[in-house]
């Protein structure tokens, strides 16, 4: 499966040599991504697809620092040689554009290979068999929760990269990603509402793994039940409230509110930087709170090397409430006043890598106990958790935001937003369900508000991040639940 990349040894050396002869620095990215997908709706296979994305991107930096990138969707040696010469000529000839001279950190040559799965297992994914399995799963969910319209899907993907540089660097890595997904659309007197559930695994056999399937069915069943009651649920009032958020929403908070503002390519306008430099040491949260980003083995966003051929480092963005480390690449580390962490990621060989997150989490140094699995906690169990730890003595009513459906941030102003799947009012008496609403505000207000954390770390909240038009997998989490004190700069949107 990965043979086209395996065969590049000689051409990689030749491209590096040609770049050195021409007096330019080279990063040559080769990518081969194979994907398979099946979708079942209402008992029928609505789509099976197998696709491949492959090609290479030639990025050069001329002697006077001009950067240019050219890409082509094959691995033909002659075409690659021609593309290198063309991109050198383009960078050299673009005087009128006033291109910015690049000032990259000095890099050590690196060779490495990380392919954690047998690529043949992805080749062997049998879509008709998968489709039949999805039909079984859809039937199972429909049996547990009659009513909503269901869509069940599976996607397997092996995203392999081989990156060469003119300094002899040659790193080869493959990122396995498989996702079981379900979307339920419920109908009520007041209209329809959709709710989704997903489960990630690096294992393409996950639809046939009993443990994985059981966990998926638990999540899918909860989502389907929610879809049946949300259409007729009332809207919640807008305002600032004491909140409890689950680990997926905490991932959203870490990702949207702090992760993006810590990406060093944006330090000239980020609210976490001043005069282009990261505000290392600035207090941004409580002393028991840290925010960490790192590649996690077996995770949706795992990436061992950057798209610039640099090993990805663990990054403590916030340690003990203070800013510590930025997410950087060779082009932004020095200028941003942070160490090189190898955070450059690209969606495809056609894209210029940007400093990006992988798996980001909010950690508390003093978490309270929350026994059992996260899926054991419905709103009633969360209410009991808060009652036991005395939160209701401080706040008679707490608003529980459950499930993450995505978010966005403006790093210049520090405004973030994310959306949940459902809202529950929790108090000593019981639980009331409301339709979801947006949670938005100032990143500083949100992090400063974090008070209690419950349960162990759970880091499997997955998604895609769309910075600068490039979609890359993201993930993360936190402890099962975090309690946030009300803060005037952070609020819940609502219609009342």
């Amino acid at each position, binding site marked *: 499966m990965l043979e086209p990349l395996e065969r590049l040894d000689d051409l990689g050396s030749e491209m590096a040599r040609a770049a050195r002869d021409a007096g330019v620095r080279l990063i040559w990215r080769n990518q081969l991504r194979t994907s398979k997908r099946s979708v079942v709706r209402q008992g029928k296979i609505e789509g099976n697809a197998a696709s491949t994305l492959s090609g290479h991107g030639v990025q050069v930096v001329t002697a006077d620092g001009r950067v240019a990138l050219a890409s082509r*969707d094959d691995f033909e040696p002659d075409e690659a040689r021609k593309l290198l010469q063309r991109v050198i000529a383009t960078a050299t000839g673009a005087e009128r554009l006033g291109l910015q001279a690049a000032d990259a950190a000095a890099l050590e040559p690196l060779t490495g290979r990380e392919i954690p799965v047998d690529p043949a297992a992805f080749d062997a994914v049998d879509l008709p068999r998968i489709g039949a399995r999805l039909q079984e799963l859809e039937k199972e969910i429909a049996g547990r929760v009659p009513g909503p319209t269901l869509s069940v899907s599976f996607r397997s993907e092996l995203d392999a990269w081989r990156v060469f540089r003119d300094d002899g660097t040659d790193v080869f890595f493959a990122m396995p990603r498989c996702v079981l997904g379900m979307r339920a659309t419920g109908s009520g007197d007041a209209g329809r509402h959709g709710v989704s559930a997903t489960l990630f695994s690096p294992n393409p056999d996950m639809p046939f793994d009993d443990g994985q399937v059981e966990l998926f069915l638990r999540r899918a069943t909860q989502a389907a039940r929610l879809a049946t009651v949300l259409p007729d649920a009332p809207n919640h009032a807008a305002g600032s409230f004491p909140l409890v958020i689950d680990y997926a929403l905490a991932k959203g908070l870490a990702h949207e509110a702090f992760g993006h503002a810590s990406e060093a390519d944006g330090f000239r306008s980020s609210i976490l930087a001043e005069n282009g430099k990261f505000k290392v040491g600035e207090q941004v949260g409580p002393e028991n709170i840290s925010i960490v980003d790192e590649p996690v083995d077996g995770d949706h966003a795992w990436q061992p090397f950057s798209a610039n051929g640099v090993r990805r480092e663990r990054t403590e963005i916030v340690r003990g409430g203070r800013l510590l480390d930025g997410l950087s690449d060779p082009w932004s580390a020095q200028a941003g006043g942070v160490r090189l962490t190898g955070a450059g990621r690209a969606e495809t060989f056609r894209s210029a890598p940007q400093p990006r997150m992988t798996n980001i989490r909010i950690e508390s140094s003093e978490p309270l106990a929350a026994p059992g699995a996260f899926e054991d906690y419905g709103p009633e169990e969360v209410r009991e958790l808060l009652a036991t730890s005395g939160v209701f003595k401080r706040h008679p009513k707490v608003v529980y935001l459950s499930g993450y459906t995505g978010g966005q941030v403006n790093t210049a102003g520090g405004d973030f937003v994310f959306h949940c799947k459902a809202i529950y009012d929790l108090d000593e008496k019981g639980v009331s369900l409301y339709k979801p609403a947006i949670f938005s505000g100032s990143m500083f207000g949100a992090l400063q508000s974090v008070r209690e954390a419950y349960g162990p770390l759970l880091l499997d909240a997955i998604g895609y991040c769309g910075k600068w038009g490039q979609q890359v997998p993201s993930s993360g989490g936190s402890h099962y639940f975090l309690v946030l004190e009300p803060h005037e700069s952070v609020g819940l949107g609502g219609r009342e």
Partner: protein
Amino acid sequence: MKLEPVLEAIPQVRAEGQTVVTWQVHGTESRRLSLGIKDREAGNAHAPLSLAEASSARYLLVWSDGKICRGTLERHQDPRAAFEEARATAYDDPDAAHVLGPDAFADVLLWDDSTAAIAGGDTALIADRLAHVRELIAAAGAKTWSGSFSAGASDSRLVTSNGLDTTSRGTSFGWFVNVDGEAGDGFGARRPESDEDFRARLAQLMETAANLATDTPPIEAGTHRVLLHPRVVESYMLSTLMQNIDGSAVAHQESAFNRDDFGSDAPKLRHDIGLSIDPLQPYKAGSYRFTGYGLPAAPCTFVENGRLVQPILDIKYGRRLGLKPTPVPFGPDAASFGTPDRMAYEDALKQTDVMVLSVLGVHTQDRISGDFSLSAPLALAIRQGHAAGRLRGTISGNAWETLNSPELTFVDVPHEVTPGMLFPCRFDAR
């Protein structure tokens, strides 16, 4: 992608004892040039001057046992081997096992030689426009700006086993400028707009950025007459409506509307609201010669006088819903949305107290229920018809209630095809 080798291979394809009896192949070759600007730095390592070459073919194969395969053929793949390998993904989908035959295709103006030259590497026009942006940014004293310029050119050919064989050539040009990481605007079409239009749009953006530079005290939380800028209308209201009239969503009951709502006399939106497209308009980004399955471009009405006329349909979902396939929306500049009469912009400003310029979180909304709750970090307080400083807040409501509200007014906004929308909406300032 040159299709001759592909067309020669199809009759040779054999897999699991089956042959290909019906097929469609849509090949495309393209090249593109783009330049990014990040925080004043043009073409830095994160937004470099980029050249891209691409060639591929999308295909639909119907096998002799009725099963189908869909996929994309890459430049380097052997067509016969790829098709035979694709047999392993074949599945039953009788509604999708059909292709179109010959038809009459209009000559739509989609190609511009000067744009094709930019896509091939001629950066003179981009350099001129970049220089003008830099001048305005310097004059305004803005701290920073980011943006992009791009141009593309593509040739495509679509062939089916039913005798359809047609081609299309098109170019594209676009730019986007964002000032101080906040206010932004841009343009996209099949060719660059005139220098005069470029300068006018940029001047308007700089004025907006200047208006946003001054904060104003938050207005009282509650229902206000809010004016949504056309960009917000496109990104949320129009896209929500289009997602809900998509044939796939309707067929799978993943829409706010049912099959029976289409063609019914009962309006689902306010009685004077319409939505139509005209993809034959010259040089529009949303114009084209034929759809991805070979239906000729033509004007098409989806909503008329509040009634749902027809969903957006491809061949598969047309058959599934018992309706004919339709042309598809490809970009908002070829769409007509709203009411025939629009309020003048100056008049609308006198009737609003908040103008929302952009929203965050559109992709997180549940599009079926129509409930929206969006962060509006870029909003302007409007007093006596004039901008009176920046507001930050959230807007909340329901798209379907809004599109049925007697208090909704569509507004003609200068330089924009899509209208603004003025209506009572909850705004919670921060």
